[in-house]
C-alpha cells in the first residue's frame, strides 16, 4: 500500500474516532448546558435584571433625570407619571411595577394600583382632571387627589433609582448595602441589616458540620479500610442505607428522638443524668446533629476509598521500627489520606452551605441559613431578583472556597 493512502486511512480513522467520542459526550454536554449552565446564567441575569420601571414609566424616569431627592419632584414628573400609568393596558404590568416599587418603598403597591385603577376608570374624576389639565399646568393636584402619598418624595426616589434597565441594588442588598439618594454606596440601616449575619452563620454551621463529620467519619473509615473486603462492603451498606433514605424522613426521625419528650431526653431523665429535659431541638444543636448525620456518607466514602489504597505495611513498619502506634498513624497514614480529607471536607462543606430543609425543620429562627432567605424571597415575597442575588452570593462564596481549596490543595499534595 502506498504511504499517502495509509496516512489518509489513518487520518480518516482518527477523525471517525474523534467524532464518535464527541457523539458519545454530546448528550452529557447538552444535558449539562441545559440543566446547569443555562439556569446559572439565568440566575445571574435575574440578579441584576430590572425591567419593570424602565418599561412602564419611561417618561417619568426621563422627567426625573437630574432630580436628586433634595426637594419636591419637578412638576413635569407628575404629568409624565399620569401619562405613563394611563398608558399601561395590562393589569399584570401595573402589578409588576407595583411589586417592584413596593419592595423598595413599602406602600408603593397600593399607591400604584389605586392610582392606575383611578386613571384607567373610564369616567373617574381623577382621570378627567388629569387628562383635561394641560401638561404644563400640573397634574400634581389631581394625582395628590387620587392619593396624597404622591406628595412623599420616597416614592419618587425609588422610581428615579430604578429607571435603568439593569440594577446593582439586589446584589448590594444581598450584602447589606444600598445606594443612597446621591447614588453612593452606603450601609443598610441597622434594623434592615440581616444578610451578612446570615452568611456568616451559614459558613459557621457548614464549618461545624464539616468538623463533626470528619471527627466521626475518619475513625469509622479507617476501621472499614482495615476490615476484610467482604465484611467492609457489608458494613458499608449500613453507611449507605441512610444515604438512600429521604432527607425528610431522617429529619423527622431526629425530631422524634430529640424533642423534649423524645427518646434521648426520656433516656437521660430515666438514667438520672439530667433533671429537666434538655433543649436539643429547634436550636443549633439539633441542626448540627441532623446535618452531620445526613452528610456523614459524603465524608466516609472519599476517606474510605483513599484509605483502601494505603498499604497497611507502612503502619506496621513504623511500629516495628519502634514508633508509638498513634505517632505512627499520624506520620504515615494521615499524610497519605490528605486527598480524602480534602475531598470529603470540601464535599460536606459545599453541600452544607446550601442546606434549607433541615435547618427549617429542626432549627430555630437564629439557625436559618442563607437558602432560607432565598426561599423566603422566591416563594413568599415573589421577589425573584432578591432571591437570585442571594443565590449569586452563595455561588460566589462556593467558588471562592473551591478556588482556595485548589490552591491550598496543590501546595499540600505536591509530591
Amino acid at each position, binding site marked *: 500500500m502506498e504511504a499517502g493512502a495509509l496516512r489518509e486511512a489513518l487520518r480518516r480513522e482518527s477523525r471517525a474516532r474523534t467524532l464518535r467520542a464527541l457523539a458519545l459526550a454530546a448528550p452529557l454536554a447538552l444535558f449539562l448546558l441545559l440543566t446547569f449552565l443555562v439556569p446559572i446564567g439565568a440566575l445571574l441575569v435575574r440578579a441584576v435584571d430590572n425591567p419593570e420601571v424602565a418599561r412602564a414609566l419611561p417618561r417619568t424616569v426621563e422627567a426625573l433625570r437630574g432630580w436628586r431627592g433634595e426637594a419636591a419632584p419637578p412638576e413635569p414628573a407628575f404629568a409624565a407619571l399620569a401619562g405613563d400609568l394611563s398608558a399601561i393596558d395590562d*393589569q399584570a404590568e401595573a402589578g409588576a411595577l407595583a411589586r417592584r416599587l413596593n419592595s423598595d418603598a413599602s406602600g408603593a403597591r397600593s399607591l400604584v394600583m389605586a392610582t392606575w385603577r383611578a386613571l384607567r376608570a373610564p369616567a373617574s374624576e381623577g382621570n378627567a382632571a388629569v387628562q383635561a389639565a394641560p401638561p404644563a399646568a400640573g397634574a400634581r393636584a389631581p394625582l395628590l387627589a387620587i392619593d396624597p402619598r404622591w406628595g412623599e418624595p420616597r416614592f419618587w426616589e425609588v422610581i428615579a433609582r430604578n429607571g435603568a434597565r439593569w440594577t446593582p441594588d439586589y446584589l448590594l442588598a444581598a450584602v447589606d448595602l444600598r445606594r443612597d439618594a446621591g447614588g453612593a454606596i452606603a450601609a443598610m440601616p441597622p434594623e434592615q441589616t440581616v444578610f451578612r449575619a446570615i452568611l456568616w452563620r451559614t459558613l459557621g454551621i457548614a464549618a461545624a458540620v464539616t468538623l463533626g463529620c470528619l471527627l466521626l467519619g475518619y475513625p469509622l473509615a479507617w476501621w472499614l479500610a482495615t476490615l476484610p473486603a467482604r465484611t467492609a462492603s457489608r458494613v458499608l451498606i449500613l453507611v449507605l442505607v441512610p444515604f438512600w433514605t429521604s432527607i425528610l424522613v431522617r429529619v423527622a426521625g431526629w425530631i422524634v428522638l430529640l424533642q423534649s419528650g423524645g427518646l434521648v431526653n426520656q433516656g437521660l431523665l430515666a438514667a438520672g443524668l439530667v433533671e429537666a429535659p434538655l433543649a436539643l431541638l429547634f436550636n443549633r444543636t439539633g441542626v448540627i446533629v441532623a446535618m452531620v448525620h445526613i452528610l456523614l456518607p459524603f465524608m466516609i466514602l472519599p476517606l474510605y476509598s483513599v484509605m483502601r489504597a494505603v498499604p497497611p505495611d507502612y503502619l506496621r513498619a513504623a511500629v516495628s521500627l519502634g514508633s508509638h502506634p498513634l505517632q505512627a498513624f499520624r506520620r504515615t497514614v494521615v499524610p497519605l489520606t490528605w486527598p480524602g480529607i480534602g475531598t470529603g471536607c470540601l464535599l460536606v462543606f459545599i453541600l452544607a452551605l446550601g442546606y434549607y430543609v433541615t435547618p*427549617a425543620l429542626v432549627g*430555630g429562627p*437564629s439557625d436559618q441559613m442563607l437558602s432560607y432567605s432565598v426561599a423566603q424571597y422566591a416563594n413568599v415575597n*415573589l421577589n425573584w431578583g432578591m432571591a437570585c442575588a442571594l443565590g449569586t452570593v452563595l455561588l460566589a462564596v462556593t467558588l471562592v472556597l473551591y478556588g482556595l481549596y485548589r490552591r491550598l490543595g496543590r501546595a499540600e499534595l505536591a509530591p
Partner: protein
Amino acid sequence: MKRAPRLIPALLLVLGAVPAVAQQLTVVNFGGANGAAQKKAFYEPFEKSAGAKVVPVEYNGEQAKIKAMVEARKVTWDVVEAESADLDRGCDEGLYERLDWSRLGGKADFLPAAVHECGVGVFVWSSALAYDAGRLKEPPRGWADFWDVKRFPGKRALRKAARFNLEFALMADGVKPAEVYRVLATPEGTERAFRKLGELKPHLQWWETGAQAPQFLVAGDVVMASAYNGRIETARREGRDLRLVWTGSIYDLDFWSIPKGSPNRDLALRFIAQAITPQRQAEFARLISYGPTHLKAFNGLDPKVLAQLPTAPANVKDALKFDFRFWSDQGEALEKRFAAWAAQ
C-alpha cells in the same frame, strides 16, 4: 380483561386523538385535615356529578410555582386555594383569572369579604391562642396571658413569620383589636410590636406548617401556641383536650382561584360554582370547623357545629379581621425586619 377498556382512552389521550376524554381537574389545597375535608365535601361530589376526575395537589401557599407556570405559559394547576393576601397580589400581577361572577351566583349571597374579582371565599379560618387544658391550672384569657411567663411558665409556639405575631404582640400590649392596624401602620407602632415580641423571645419556639402547632401542644413542648382553629378542633375530636381562646384571634378567608391560562378554565369554574353552594359548604363545615362563606350555608348547620366556627357571633366578637391590604404593602419590609430581629 378488566384493564383493556381503561387502557384505550388513555392510549387515545396520549396520541392526542381525543383530548376531551376523561377530563381532569387539578385542585391545589393546603393538605392535612383541611385537604381531607375538601376531598369529601367538594371533590368526590363533583367527580360524581361532572364525570371529571379531580386530582388533588398539596402546597403551603407558595406563589412561586404559580408565577413560574404563568410566566412559562404552561399552567398545570386548574383551581388553587389561595390566601387572601396572595390572591389580591396575584390578581394585581396577573397570576389569576378574573372570575365570571354571572356563573357563580349573586355576590349578595356571600359574606362581603368573600367576594373578589379573582376569587370567591372557600371558608373562613382563624388563627387563635390554643392550649392544652390538661397542662395549665387556669385557662389563659388572651394574648396578655400568653405573654405572662410568670403566671404561665413554659415555652410558647408562634408561626415563624411577622404576620399575625405583630398583631398578637400589640394586643398583648393592650391595643384593642379595632386599633391594631392603625397602630401597626405607624413607625412607633411597629417599634412597639417588635419590642413586645422581644420580651417573649427567650420563651418562643416557632412553627411553620399548620400541623406543627397542635403537635407541639400534645407533645408538651409548649404550654400555649397560636394555631389554626380547625386543626385544634380536629385534634379535640381525636380525643386531645386542646382548647381555643377566641379573644384576640385573627380571622381570614381562603379563596378559590384559577391560575391565568389554565386550559380547563370552564371546568374549573363549574367546580367552583358547585363547591360554593350552601350544601357543599355546610358539609365542609361539619367535617372541619372552618366557616362557610355562603350566607345560606349557615341555615343547615347544627348549633354545636356553628359554635365552633370562627364566624360564630361569640367567637367573632373580640376577633380581628386580617388586613391583607396592609400586609400586601408592608409585608416584604416587615418580614425582612422580622428575619433580622429573629436572627439577633
